[in-house]
């Protein structure tokens, strides 16, 4: 059981690198969808069976695996763009940074004072690494859709951390977090549409023209 959960977490980390290394939007969206599905399965791996757990799993898989990718896919199609053309930071440097941050995450979590039953898992380092990947995507990519993807990865990182507490977490908090994410994506979808209509481009760096002088 433990090894399977850890293997899935390794997969999550690999997907992080896919998101960092690709410029194709549809590919990145699908990668994040797969990451969401894996995260949906994970709670079942580490906690004993309960209907509460089944509920979480099903809802997460539906929202992260299908609803959000669908919304994003539609935004990509309506904006008619396929690739991130010129990111602030190239793909290779981003990948290198991602590797450095992942290493840092492992080093950092090794020194955290944790409860004994959590010490053998990879949850904490994977969570921090994913969080930082999300930040990297947010800061280095220009297109608004990549911003949403970065945001999703960031959220996934936070979610992995929350997995440790899934048993203790009330349904309301989970429902709230999921709803937050869904609404966030929804709003970003609208914003993306507005940006592409206003600036006829999805380049968020053009938003500087809104700044006051």
């Amino acid at each position, binding site marked *: 059981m433990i090894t399977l959960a850890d293997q899935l977490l390794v997969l999550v980390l690999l997907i992080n690198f896919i998101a960092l290394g690709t410029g194709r939007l549809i590919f990145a969206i699908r990668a994040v969808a797969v990451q969401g599905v894996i995260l949906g399965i994970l709670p079942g791996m580490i906690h004993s069976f309960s209907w509460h757990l089944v509920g979480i799993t099903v809802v997460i898989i539906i929202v992260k695996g299908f609803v959000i990718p669908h919304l994003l896919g539609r935004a990509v199609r309506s904006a008619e763009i396929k690739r991130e053309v010129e990111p*602030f930071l190239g793909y290779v440097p981003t990948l290198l940074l991602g590797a450095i941050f992942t290493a840092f995450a492992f080093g*950092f979590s090794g*020194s955290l004072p944790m409860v004994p039953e959590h010490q053998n898992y990879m949850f904490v380092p994977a969570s921090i690494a994913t969080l930082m990947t999300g*930040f990297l995507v947010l*800061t280095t990519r220009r297109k608004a859709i990549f911003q949403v993807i970065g945001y999703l990865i960031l959220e996934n990182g936070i979610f992995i951390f929350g997995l440790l507490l899934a048993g203790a977490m009330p349904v309301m908090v989970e429902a709230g977090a999921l709803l937050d994410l869904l609404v966030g994506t929804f709003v970003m979808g609208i914003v993306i549409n507005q940006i592409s209509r206003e600036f006829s481009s999805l380049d968020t*760096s053009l938003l500087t*023209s809104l*700044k006051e002088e």
Partner: protein
Amino acid sequence: MYSVLQDSVDPALLVLDATLVMGCAGIPGLFLKRPGPGQAVAALCTTLAALVGIATALKLLFSGTTASCSLAWNLPFGSCELAIDPLSALFLIPVFLVTAAGSLFAVGYWPAVRNRRSEPGLTFFYGILGASMALVLLARNTLFFMMVWEVMALSAYFLIVTEHEREEVRRAGIIYLLATHCGTALLLLFFSLLAARTGSFLLPATGSLSALTPLAPVMAVAALIGFGAKAGLMPLHFWLPPAHANAPSHVSALMSGVMLKMGIYGILRSASFFYDIPLLWGTLLTIVGLTSALLGIAFALAQRDLKRLLACSSIENIGIITIGTGVALVGAASQSTELVYLGAAGALLHVLNHSLFKPLLFLGSGVIIHATGTRDMNLMGGLGKTMPRIGGLFLVGTVAICGIPPLNGFVSEFLLYLGFFSQIQGDKLIYLMGAAPLLALVGGLAVLTFTKLYSSVFLGTPRSLWSGHRGGELPMGVPMALFALLCLLIGVVPQTALSLVSSAVTALFPRLPLSPLAVEYGAILEKLSLAGVLLLTIVLVITLLWRWRLGREPVTAAPTWGCGYQRGTSRMQYGATSFSELAVSIGNGVLGQRIGRPLLTGLFPERSECSDLPSETLLDRIIAPFLQAVGIAFAFLRRLQNGLMHIYVLYIFATLFILMLWAH
């Protein structure tokens, strides 16, 4: 039955409820589509809340007790204690009174039907300002104090910028924000030092700290600047004239009548923490007060804008209050009980008085501006004939503010004079006698200033065509009449007002035996009261005789004889600027009144203009250049805000990363 009911209710809770009602009074208006009912509901709620609040405060004052309660909150800064001691109760009276009167006044002055866009916000923030000031007085937890203090400061800002379409108004708002936040910064310093000293976030009890520790002077200076900026003491007064001139009149009335007093309350409250205040502090406060009073009234004299004049005169009155406070502290340092009592009672009574006659004058200025559509006194005139009742009420206010018997302004200044002269036999504090002629000079200049104001606004003939509105005079007149009546009442029965103030003085200085003095000076004021009644009777008799004579003979109106000049116009009268020109020219080095005179040549000079520009010496010559320099020096910080979303995310990322490394 009634008294049983009243006794069973905790007075602190009663005041808290009244405050809550006052604060929420403007909320219904935000959601109503039809203009009008929201404003009426707000006025009604505020009036009812004020009745409850004033009654409770008076009861607490007369009984001299302290009511307290504690709010449940989950912040890690100690318990949120609220208390009403006599000092708070005394300041609560103007808070409730002026807020209620102003909200009634607004119904006629800022009718919702004519100001559909600005009225809901104005009514809402007006209630919030009143409620936050009441909470400032109740707060005994420093953090809660700072919170409500900021709510007060910000709601006042939103009230000032009600007419934000005008550039001038926005500038006044920015200047106000600057001044108030500089003050807040120093208050934070003060309260942090206080918390470090006492080890808790509760305000220390009266007389529980020593003023002789090395950090105490730092605390005193921080408190003086922090609270003084709000009160408008002299070097920090620069926000006051533009803010008061550009706010709606009932807002100016509330700010000048009550909000400035919150600064005074802060100074008094912080002074009460210490039991051994050195002589220097009191002397410093007296000097600051004298400067404010003298320069404030001198600036007022030079104004031609009606509301700026009133605002400058607020600086003067705050100065007088500060003189009283300083004298009381000097007395406390030199063990002169008499000086303590007279100084503190004079200051507190003047707080009460100024919160009656200044709102009266500001509300009156509202009616005048409403009717004429201008604030420039050089364009007014002759209003006494078209609105005689308002003119009469305004006259009461001007007489009171000049400190002329038998009105209330005289009583508080009388107490201060008694204080100065009480040292005539002493050997240590003989120099306090020097303050008496200065205060007299202030009084004389005040008479000059308000004669200028009244004569140029109400007397003579109109100097221009006006674009004002008529109507709404009943809701505007009633609050004014209430204030005028209270001014007269305190002037005629000053001993009652003194007994109100005495319990607050006792709460400030609980260690000193002040009650025999209260009795002694109460008796003196009773004699004053007799003289006042006599004077009032004489005035009434003369007025009646005069009217009787006027009624017997036919009265004819004719233009003033113009020495045979045939083309006289109504602009050829002594205007506001010309009235005070000579007096202002004496102190023009400081006042900086810029009168632009045309050069007249030949027998038939060309058409030309004469202008009178008010200048703000401190603001224009020192503060504005200083801020410009600061702006240039910190220009690099603007690059942090570059509008790039990625960079903003990067800031968050960097913060997180640094925190992680740090915790590591």
